[in-house]
């Protein structure tokens, strides 16, 4: 069995599973062969007690239970070991017993106490038995899946039987499931239910003509159980296609949220996952993405990339040295903020103040809290969309308050000016009582802009002039701090560097040699070999490769000898060979995965020796 991950989206992945010369895409639905219910022609994986000869589909044979084992049939491509025999609510003792493995397939006896046995080295697919029982209790389910996914790592596939529906499929995959099955589609059909991504409807409630899937269209004969089951199959397959596309586009969470909105049981699992398992998600979340972050949910403040942004701003970021006056600004719909009409007006006022270099612009927004101007290109600040209502929920208020408090502890200013609309200003004022307000009615009103100009002039003239070239160095340094931490970031973009080009695409040059480039698209520093040397000196983001390889385009994970486990996707990587810098590039999988996986691209090389 061979498995290669092609795309990743947080804990979800899509890839190719190969066994006996049969290739199937993942995530996938294993269609169970229930007599009387035809398996759809699109089914690529079939679970059956009677495998056929020469089937195109990958045939998987379940081997019964420990109480009654089923003989292996040689037509099958793969076998699932016998059910371990004890339900989830039995104590740990019972889940330790029994055999677990059959070739490369392993079964974990799921249980409410969260015990997971040692998983054999050989195992490639892991089935969580009793998952239907666990699924009934949201926190137990989420804890178990996260724990299991962590234990089985990246190279093994996770199989969750019996629970998949069109509504929860996206969520199951979002949590890390690679394989699910069609059992629920059958049982729902037998119970008289039609499944849709939005939920289930009893057959008598469904009006003719609502569903145009091949099983329903034209007939809408819901007295037939076969129709109901086939409809449910169609919905599962359609949702599977959507899930796969969403993973490729990095937008799976949006799909998950859409599905969860109409299911409290699902929404509660999603919330528990976001609130309680930040590090599980964060290390699987890329540092930057091309997809826009959609933050329509109140839970957006807990999204891993959002929380990471706030944490890095609070812990790794340091305001530019010359900045003495803090100017708090509202966000804009257009990103980066500085390209928006409102921010152009604010910046005109700032420029005409005479000494803009001493003023530090920080944007107050949700769900990111505070976005220093230098980081406006950085994901997700450079690419997010929120509904704007001028109403702030308590969670958001508290988040902004905590952010302001944490930020001002590390970054001190002589003066704080708030050019924020009233609702937002009130939140800020609670933390900074002596804040100066410049906003009258609306931030872009004439009175507001005039007042902003007047107040800025009043404060900035006290300070010595700070040049604009120095500001771009500041931008580069702040981004470097966000990417590599404060000390290393400051070392990489030191006072000796100069800037070539103009915002938002420019280069950092040191001793006449380029160190890094910044682009609007990536919003991060892309290092040259010279820049990479600084990372090597700090032993950061290092990937050691086999000395027999001379990779040009990319480093494959099979060639990785060891990698910094803290690397996340889109991190800048220094590739070392014999302890010498060989190349710089970008991480395509995280460090843990590089260390474990034997397939797939680990690093995309930008420059090599």
């Amino acid at each position, binding site marked *: 069995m061979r498995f290669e991950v092609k795309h990743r989206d947080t804990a979800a992945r899509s890839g190719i599973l190969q066994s006996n010369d049969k290739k199937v895409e993942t995530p996938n639905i294993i269609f169970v062969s229930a007599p009387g219910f035809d398996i759809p022609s699109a089914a690529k994986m079939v679970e059956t007690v009677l495998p056929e000869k020469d089937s195109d589909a990958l045939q998987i044979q379940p081997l019964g239970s420990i*109480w009654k084992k089923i003989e292996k049939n040689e037509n099958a491509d793969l076998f699932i070991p016998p059910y371990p025999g004890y339900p989830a609510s039995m104590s740990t003792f019972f889940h330790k017993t029994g055999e677990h493995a059959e070739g490369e397939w392993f079964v974990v006896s799921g249980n409410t106490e969260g015990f997971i046995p040692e998983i054999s080295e050989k195992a490639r697919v892991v089935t969580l038995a009793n998952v239907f029982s666990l699924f009934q209790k949201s926190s137990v389910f989420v804890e178990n899946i996260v724990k299991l996914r962590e234990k089985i790592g990246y190279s093994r596939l996770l199989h969750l039987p019996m629970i998949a529906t069109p509504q929860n499929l996206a969520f199951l995959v979002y949590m890390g499931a690679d394989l699910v099955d069609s059992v629920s589609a059958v049982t729902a059909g037998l119970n008289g239910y039609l499944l849709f991504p939005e939920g289930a409807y009893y057959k008598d409630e469904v009006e003719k003509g609502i569903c145009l899937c091949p099983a329903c269209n034209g007939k809408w004969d819901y007295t037939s159980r076969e129709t109901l089951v086939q409809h449910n199959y169609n919905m599962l397959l359609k949702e599977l296609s959507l899930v796969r596309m969403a993973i490729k586009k990095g937008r799976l969470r949006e799909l998950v949220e859409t599905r969860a909105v109409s299911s409290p049981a699902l929404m509660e699992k999603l919330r528990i996952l976001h609130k309680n398992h930040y590090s599980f998600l964060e290390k699987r979340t890329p540092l930057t993405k091309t997809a826009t972050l959609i933050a329509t949910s109140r839970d957006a403040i807990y999204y891993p990339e959002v929380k990471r942004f706030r944490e890095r701003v609070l812990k790794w970021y340091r305001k530019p040295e010359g900045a003495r006056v803090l100017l708090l600004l509202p966000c804009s719909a257009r990103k980066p903020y500085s390209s928006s009409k409102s921010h152009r007006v604010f910046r005109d006022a700032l420029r005409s103040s005479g000494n803009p270099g001493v003023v530090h612009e920080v944007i107050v927004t949700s769900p990111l809290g505070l976005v220093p101007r230098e980081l406006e290109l950085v994901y997700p600040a450079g690419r997010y969309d929120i509904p704007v209502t001028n109403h702030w929920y308590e969670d958001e208020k508290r988040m902004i308050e905590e952010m302001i408090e944490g930020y001002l502890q590390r970054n001190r200013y002589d003066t704080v000016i708030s050019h924020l609309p009233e609702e937002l200003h009130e939140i800020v004022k609670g933390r900074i009582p002596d804040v100066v307000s410049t906003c009258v009615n609306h931030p872009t009103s004439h009175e507001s802009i005039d007042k902003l100009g007047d107040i800025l002039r009043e404060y900035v003239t006290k300070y010595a002039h700070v040049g604009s070239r120095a500001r771009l160095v500041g931008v580069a340094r702040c981004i470097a701090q966000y990417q590599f931490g404060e000390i290393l970031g400051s070392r990489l973009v030191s006072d000796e560097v100069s800037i070539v080009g103009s915002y938002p695409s420019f280069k950092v040059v040191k001793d006449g040699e380029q160190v890094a480039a910044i682009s609007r698209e990536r919003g991060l520093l892309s290092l040259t070999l010279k820049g990479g040397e600084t990372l090597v000196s700090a032993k950061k983001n290092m990937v050691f490769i086999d000395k027999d390889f001379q990779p040009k385009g990319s480093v494959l994970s099979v060639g990785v000898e060891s990698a910094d486990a803290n690397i996340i996707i889109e991190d800048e990587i220094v590739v070392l060979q014999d302890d010498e810098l060989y190349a710089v590039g970008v991480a395509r999988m995280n460090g843990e995965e590089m260390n474990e996986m034997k397939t797939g691209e680990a690093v995309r090389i930008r420059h090599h020796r």
Partner: protein
Amino acid sequence: MSDIGEFVQQIKKNSRRKNQNPNKPAGCWSEDDLINGRKTKSLVVILRTSGCRWSRYSGCTMCGYFNDSLEKPVERGQLLAQMRYALSLYKNEQGIKIFTSGSFLDGEEIPYDLQVDLLKQCVQKVGVKKVSVESRPEFIKKEKIANLRDVIEPATLEVSIGLESADDKVLRGAVNKGFTFKDYEKAVDILKKEGVLVKTYVLIKPPFLSEGDAIADSVNTVKKIKELTDTVSFNPVSVHRNTLVEYLWKRGEYRPPWLWSIVEILKRSKEVAPDLEMKCDVTGGGTRRGAHNCRACDAQVLDAIRRFSLEQDTGVFNGLECQCKHTWKTSIDLESFTYNPLVVEYEKGW
């Protein structure tokens, strides 16, 4: 937690015994029965004793009969009084079955001389042709059995053993029976040699086994014991209070057997052993805690099972149909893929 017995004991701790009158039996009634292949009546007496010894320090996963037992050992006079009371209800039944929620032959539960006296009381009633008692195999000893047999002559003695399953894996891992199939075989050997009739209880759907596994296990058990036993009595699990089965049932991880499964087992068993006498008393049949189908067909199917026990003819099952039969069949097919107990609810069905 070191074994299944500890789990069972832990659940039992929550049980509260009702006030029980040690001078009256726990139950007593007359029921249809088959003796020497003829339809007749038997008097059933359930004596209240200190109960099953095995249940006190370990216990079977489905058995809640300890709920009927006394916490203190019963006195001689009390037991005799219970028997007197029961026999006062005697109405010329040809058989008397004495149950104790334990082992009649366990000397700790009923001292041996008292066992003799109780049996003597039974055969004082003219017309009694057969007396049945129950026991775990470890209490079946050659000399004592021979003596008890002589005491009741010319009536026949029958000893019933709750084997449950002939599969040691099921006995140990699912029932926690505390003995093996070999122990049963030894006990049967003694009984046969002494010319005592053997009745064997076969459990239908122990916990943890799927519906399909359970059907296979029961039929397989019949295959293994058909030469050993005179009668097979199938006991479909019903959910007793304070048992491991109840623990699972409350958590949606156990469903009592379908009546269709019982029908299937009876049909297949009769094919396997056409001459063997088979009966099945479905305790709590048609209720949530007992074996049931979909509610609509329960009474009809239960009646057929009752008739089968008396007529020994699987023809009584011909023509039994209900929509839920398809559900039952499909659920058995699906169980192979669920990797989780598949419980079809009583109220909803499919």
